[in-house]
């Protein structure tokens, strides 16, 4: 398997095939003499924008801490939660618990649902 071609930037789906964003980054553990291992999937603006330019990554990090769901740590999903790697990558987690769709839930609750016709369901109510 090739990571850049087959894993990075792929869509993430949770255990009910709900969309969870994309694989924006991957965390690799290296040691002095041990084989490098990719242990986590990283999701989120800070990870994503850093790929374009480190300054953009820093700005995204700061904004994530100040606005919306005000998340301080990056969203990381352990590779052990990956079920399949194919067209998309499916995980065996529930979307709303993984932190990957915090922004979606926040915008739904604070903005969209306040507008008439916006609906009143949570994005992942498993219907």
């Amino acid at each position: 398997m090739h990571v850049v071609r087959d894993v990075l930037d792929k869509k993430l789906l949770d255990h009910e095939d709900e969309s969870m964003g994309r694989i924006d980054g991957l965390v690799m553990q290296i040691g002095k003499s041990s084989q490098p291992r990719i242990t986590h999937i990283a999701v989120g603006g800070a990870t994503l924008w850093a790929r374009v330019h480190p300054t953009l990554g820093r700005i995204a990090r700061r904004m994530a801490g100040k606005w919306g769901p005000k998340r301080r740590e990056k969203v990381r999903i352990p590779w052990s939660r990956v079920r399949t790697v194919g067209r998309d990558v499916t995980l065996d987690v529930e979307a709303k618990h993984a932190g990957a769709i915090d922004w979606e839930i926040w915008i739904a609750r604070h903005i969209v649902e306040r507008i008439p016709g916006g609906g009143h369901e949570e994005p992942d109510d498993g219907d």
Partner: protein
Amino acid sequence: MKKILQISLGIVTAVGGFLEIGSVVTAVQAGASFNYQLLWAVLLGTICLIFLVEMSGRLAAVSKHTIVEATRERFGFPFFFIVMIGMTLVAFLVLVAELGGIGLSLQILTGIGFPWWAIPVSFLVWLLMWKGTFGLIENGASLLGLVTLSFVVAAVRLHPDWGSAAHGLLPTFPGARKASYWFVAVSILGASISPSLMYFYSSGAIEDEWDESYIPINRLTATLGMSLGGFLSMAVLVVAALVFHPRGIDVQKFEQASLLMTTALPKWGFTLFALSMLFACFGAALEISLAIAYFFAQGFGWNWSEDLAPSRDARFCLTYTIIILLGAVPLLFGVDPVKVTVMSMALTSATLPLAIVPFIFLMNDPIYLGKHRNGWLSNSVVLIIILLSFILAVISIPLELIGG
């Protein structure tokens, strides 16, 4: 039966995507200034679009990915970001032009200036996206868009010399006013070969849940749909050639263009023009707003679907809400939609390579298309389009400055 109805995706893409303020303005200018001479540009644009749209549909049906999704996944985010910036900026300008087109149509019908229509029109476009489903938009816009067939009726009633018109389908070099000729030619191509149209169509194919069995209907839809669009544009050009050219009228304002059909259809011509523009621009505004919102949502991996209630794809809906609101702003300040149209077409030509070059890579990717990859014919056409788009990119801006 359902598959045949898919033709409506082709029609809405044609009428809202192909025939909109840009193509009408350029077709009228072409006919008024150069008689039938530039029909070849419309034909060329139509042929290119048929191939590009067919490929967009095929990519979506086979890979179950839209062009945007496939671009991010195969090229990575940093490259994708460059494409996104270019495409969405130009698309936003086109949105302003289309919203302005709706406003201008209402202006000539009611006498109330288009800046006053900016807010109500944007609100209506937004409301339709907020409450409507993809099917409603697709079919509604198609049906209403059929009023543009009145352009064909007008053309026939004016008894053109079909022989000379047919001559115009072959490229000729201009005698006088060379810069202006090539500028209009480039504008016609910029108005027809619009990447937003491709992005919209491939997303529509996913919304309509196409799969490999839809490949034949996709070919039919793309061909018939884009041919209809091209045919309508040609009708506009022919009418303009017959009405404005003999009188030496250089059409610069929307109000002048509105007299297009009054010679052929004295009683209804004016109203039919206004309604045609109204519905075509409305369809276009919906498509462009969707195309931009799709770009963000698909690129970043958000939920996106016109069929979902807004709270289920909140970021997607917030995106199009903000875009439509922003689109109304220039119009509120009285910025001339026709000028924005002309500028947006030059910029579309200039940024075309950004969209088409990654696209040819995708259309040859066995991972996405398997045995449905491009054959030699499709690849040859795309390579020619890429060449054309680089030429357009290089000459469109200078030409606008000289000949516009």
